[in-house]
């Protein structure tokens, strides 16, 4: 039999495969397509975990804002705290249910910086050189945080500590580890993984994993 190119894919059944990680009914609506529930907390990063001195740490909001901001570690932790409880989804197929992260809402940070009307997108940048891009709509309105606690303990360095971005409604690579700032732009500017084949937006419910999805 000659195989057709990239074809017949719907309807293909893997001979003898039955699947063991079927979701209980009550979770069916919580796990996006192609994901499975992972009890642990895997790590995904492109390089070594950077060492960050808290005395030098800053979080900046710059670019198209009326009042550029730079918070020290003490200053950002003095802002009104905000906690997220819910599920996170990694493009490498795992979903982790019922996580709790504590930090500050990105809304609080943006309010202080006063985005200019033309600001439409942001690039988050990290210690270690990582960047990721997001529409401002995905960062505001209670959808995004800068967090430093996971399940009640300080966020571990390999998970992005001292602080990471948390954008739980998108695939987790958008939740930049070791985050150090947001730059607001009037256009979109693909970040690290987005330039290397990953989807520009990354909605797990639409399975926006790679460029073509």
């Amino acid at each position, binding site marked *: 039999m000659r*195989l*057709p*190119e*990239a*074809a*017949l*894919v719907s309807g*293909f*059944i*893997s*001979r*003898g*495969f*039955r*699947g*063991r*990680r*079927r979701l209980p009914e009550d979770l069916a609506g919580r796990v996006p397509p*192609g994901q*499975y529930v*992972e009890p*642990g*907390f*895997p*790590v*995904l*990063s*492109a*390089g*070594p*975990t*950077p*060492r960050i001195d808290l005395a030098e740490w800053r979080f900046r909001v710059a670019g198209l804002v009326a009042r550029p901001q730079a918070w020290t570690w003490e200053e950002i932790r003095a802002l009104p705290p905000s906690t997220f409880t819910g599920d996170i989804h990694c493009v*490498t*197929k*795992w979903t982790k249910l019922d996580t709790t992260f504590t930090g500050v809402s990105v809304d609080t940070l943006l309010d202080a910086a006063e985005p200019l009307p033309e600001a439409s997108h942001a690039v988050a940048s990290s210690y*270690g*050189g990582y960047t990721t891009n997001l529409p401002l709509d995905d960062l505001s309105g209670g959808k995004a945080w800068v967090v430093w606690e996971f399940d009640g303990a300080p966020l571990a360095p*390999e998970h992005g500590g001292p602080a990471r971005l948390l954008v739980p409604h998108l695939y987790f690579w958008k939740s930049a580890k070791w985050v150090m700032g947001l730059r607001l732009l009037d256009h979109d500017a693909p970040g*690290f993984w987005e*330039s*290397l*084949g990953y989807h520009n937006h990354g909605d797990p419910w639409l399975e926006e*994993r*790679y*460029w*073509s*999805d």
Partner: protein
Amino acid sequence: MAGRTVLERLTWRLARVVATRAETPRFVSLDLEVPGWPGHLPGQHLDVRLTAEDGYQAQRSYSIASAPAGERVAITVERLDDGEVSPYLAGDLRAGDLLELRGPIGGYFVWEPSLGGPLLLVAGGSGVVPLLAMARHRAATGSQVPTRLLYSSRSAADALARDELDRLARTDGSGFAVTHTFTREQPPGWTGYRRRIDPAMLEEVGWPPAARPLAYVCGPTRMVEAVATTLVELGHDPVRVRTERFGPTGG
């Protein structure tokens, strides 16, 4: 750099299993023929999707083990007995079966001769797979980039491609060196390392920081964390240390 391949559309394709090979008691390689495969770079991976009769699907990622070679692609799967996908790939699939996949994926944890070296490859368990693709491509293209592979396995029987790697290292003037460490069980008369990769081992086996090696570290998360951190502490430039973590499981 890798734009050539990552720009291809990532459609799901049906591949045919050409052969299955038991590499070790726990590792099985699958040789696949993938009509329309756009080609890959060593270090990239592909996604596999299995579908049950009732429509239930499971997806997992597997690194490509083979050097680029037309529409032929090999993966090497470690069987986790309580896993969902790996026992099927490593136990149920037979030559002639079909398998749904898409790729290649990933444009950062890749190496090709034009990136130069010297190369330091550090592997734990199944993490050696993408590094094997690099070593195979390097040999196939006749690259002279000086390369050192440090490979941690539980025992000699668990080490993938041991003969092939030894042969590469014995080839005169190949510039390729391999060092094994067997953490749980050693063959009789073994005089090499018998412990987990640690700073002293990386200093002895790796390149001095002044050589500015390009390092690729792959394996279970904890091992990758420890090795990458150590390399930076030894003075290596963080931007020349590339990592791939296979998740919480593995060697």
